[in-house]
């Protein structure tokens, strides 16, 4: 109890520290100069209608590269970690029985979900969404498969190759930007096209496709790794 | 300083006088002590007889080189000490070799013989010898502290370490003697003197009842004879040192005889009146009252 009390005092202290942030937050009435620059120059420089995408893929594309990398190594670590764990247990998986409704629904829904995911990342530069969102949607489809058909096996090799191809693709895009355009991850080595059309914004759609595939496959790989351990707990 | 055959003869003369005087003192002092016990005591010339007899012993043994050299060291120490002292004040003849070194030399040279003797005794392999040496060294180191303080006090008083100068400063009557002008240093010195003479209460080094006679247990015959020579010379040298430091030195042999006799007598009197200290007791005692006198002597300079 005393310990909890102390922790409470600690937390109150911490609240007091960060309350300095909260009470000085007054909202904003206009964009700051940086955001204004993006709003004004973004459409012409990058050619993406979705300014968030412009920021994510081009202006702060390097962050995104890092982000993808994080997901990548997280998947790699989880895969390694849980693989070594499985290696020394040869017990067969004891699988729950799933309901027929779920199975049937999944048959119906999964292709749709995959398609939706693809749509989201292909249109990332135009509409809300993008590679991450699309990839995540695809992963929900995978999740559904896992829930509906626990016995199903994913092709690890395929996932791995997909991950690699998309990852290398992203990097190659970046290098192409450096070589052909003004800098690493610059999208302007492909024609910017007309603002608002599907084939616009230079390399952004391609990058987003890579990201979508990559995120989808990485999340799939994580889910798969976690799934294969479900009988352990 | 010219140094010829004449000087050597004078040195030998000093040595001869002191040796005889020492032997006679050795005879008289026990007699005085015996009188305290209402005995007649030994004859005054008994030390001569003992000396002759020991030299005349026919057989002797030796335990080794160092055993052989021990008495040599001892007697060298005694003779050296005597010769480094100005024996008769104002006499160019009996100033002997005091031009070679000052009071410091004399104080340190005392130990030359002690150490050599200790080594000789050590080689005899007799445990009692070693015990005696251990006791002797313990005791002698303890008395060194008050002695040094007293000596420093005197040296500071006269601003010199030259014994002749110290004596010179005391000329002109009893009131100029250090014992009067610097009584605390005198007291410290006279108390340590008791210890250095090896009489009761500080005679545990020899302690005949428990460790036969300490260091010289194994010494006999001629070795003992040489040691006896030292026994005669060494105390007199010490007496002369104390006389020079405290009692105005001596301008002639008779004065020397008288003064040293009474200084010696002081240790005899104390000796017959007190029982024996253990070593740790005497060590503590020297670091008590005499040390206090020494400190006061320093403070009063």
């Amino acid at each position: 109890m005393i310990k909890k009390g102390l922790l409470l005092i600690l937390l109150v202290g911490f609240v007091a520290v960060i309350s300095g942030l909260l009470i000085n937050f007054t909202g904003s009435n206009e964009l700051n100069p940086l955001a204004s620059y993006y709003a004004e120059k973004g459409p012409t420089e990058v050619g993406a209608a979705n300014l968030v995408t412009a920021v994510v893929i081009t202006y702060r594309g390097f962050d995104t590269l890092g982000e993808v990398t994080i997901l990548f190594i997280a998947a790699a670590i989880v895969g390694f970690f849980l693989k070594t764990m499985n290696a020394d247990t040869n017990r067969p998986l004891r699988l729950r029985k799933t309901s027929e409704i779920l199975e049937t629904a999944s048959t119906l829904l999964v292709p749709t979900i995959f398609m939706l995911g693809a749509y989201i990342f292909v249109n990332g530069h135009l509409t809300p969404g993008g590679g991450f969102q699309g990839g995540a949607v695809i992963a929900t489809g995978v999740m559904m498969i896992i829930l509906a058909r626990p016995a199903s096996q994913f092709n690890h090799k395929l996932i791995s190759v997909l991950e690699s191809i998309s990852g290398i693709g992203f990097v190659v895009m970046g290098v192409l930007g450096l070589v052909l355009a003004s800098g690493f991850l610059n999208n302007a080595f492909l024609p910017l096209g007309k603002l608002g059309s599907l084939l616009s914004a230079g390399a952004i759609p391609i990058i987003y496709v890579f990201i979508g595939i990559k995120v989808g496959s990485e999340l799939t790989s994580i889910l798969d790794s976690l799934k294969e351990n479900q009988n352990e707990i | 300083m010219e140094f010829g055959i004449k000087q050597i003869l004078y040195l030998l003369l000093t040595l001869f006088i002191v040796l005889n005087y020492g032997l006679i003192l050795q005879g008289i002092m026990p007699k005085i002590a015996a009188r305290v016990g209402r005995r007649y005591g030994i004859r005054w010339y008994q030390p001569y007889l003992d000396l002759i007899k020991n030299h005349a012993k026919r057989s002797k043994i030796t335990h080794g080189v160092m055993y052989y050299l021990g008495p040599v060291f001892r007697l060298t120490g005694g003779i050296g000490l005597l010769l480094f002292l100005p024996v008769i004040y104002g006499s160019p003849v009996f100033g002997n070799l005091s031009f070679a070194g000052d009071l410091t030399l004399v104080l340190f040279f005392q130990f030359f013989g002690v150490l050599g003797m200790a080594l000789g005794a050590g080689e005899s392999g007799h445990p009692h010898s070693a015990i005696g040496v251990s006791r002797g060294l313990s005791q002698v180191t303890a008395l060194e502290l008050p002695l040094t303080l007293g000596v420093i006090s005197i040296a500071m008083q006269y601003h010199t370490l030259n014994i002749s100068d110290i004596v010179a400063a005391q000329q002109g009557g009893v009131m100029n003697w250090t014992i009067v002008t610097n009584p605390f240093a005198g007291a410290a010195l006279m108390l340590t003197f008791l210890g250095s003479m090896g009489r009761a209460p500080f005679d545990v080094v020899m302690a005949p009842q428990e460790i036969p006679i300490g260091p010289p247990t194994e010494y006999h015959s001629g070795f003992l004879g040489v040691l006896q020579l030292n026994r005669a010379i060494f105390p007199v040298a010490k007496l002369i040192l104390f006389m020079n430091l405290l009692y105005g030195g001596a301008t002639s042999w008779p004065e020397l005889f008288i003064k040293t006799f009474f200084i010696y007598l002081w240790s005899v009197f104390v000796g017959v009146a007190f029982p024996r200290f253990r070593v740790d007791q005497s060590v503590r005692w020297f670091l008590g009252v005499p040390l206090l006198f020494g400190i006061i002597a320093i403070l009063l300079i």
Partner: protein
Amino acid sequence: MSKSDLEKRTVMSPDGEPIEINPLQDYFCDARPKVHEPVLPIFEKFLNWARSESLWVLGFGTGCGAIEMRPLMTPRFDAYRFGIQWRPTPRQSSVFIISGYLSVKTLKRVIRSYEQMQNPKFVIALGSCTINGGMYWDSYNTIKRLDHYLPVDVYIAGCMPRPEAILAGFEKLKELIREGKGEGANLYAQNFDWYKANQKKIIKDWDMPDYNW
């Protein structure tokens, strides 16, 4: 001191080599005593005088007579005035007083002490026990005639002799020395084999060298 200390043994040197130890041989000098001839008579006379007047007695009370020797140091008898002094170590002593009967066991110690004294040395034997066994004449464990074992210079008869008698004995000894007859040590050396044989006859467990230097 146990007998085992005298047995041969092997110890290891620091380098690990065994060393044979034979105590009797290794610890003790095994030379025989020598006869020391007197020097020129005229010197010898003077030296004998000094020897006679400087009698250092070994303080070793071997028997009941020891109690008669103490009074000699007291004011009443005061042997010091005759040049008689007590020394605690045989090395420095010249007179050995055998104060009464000697058991076999003590004899061994007496022999050792006597041999450790330096030539010239004198023996005074007190009481009838040293002469013929006295009241212990039929004891299995005392010796009867001291001069079978040591050269005795002066016997003082009595049981026990009074201190005055002992003083008289000393006077006699002085006379003998002055006359040059105090050659017990040389006698012992000359007849060493005879004395040793006698000693060994009575001392069964002879565990010391023949001559204790």
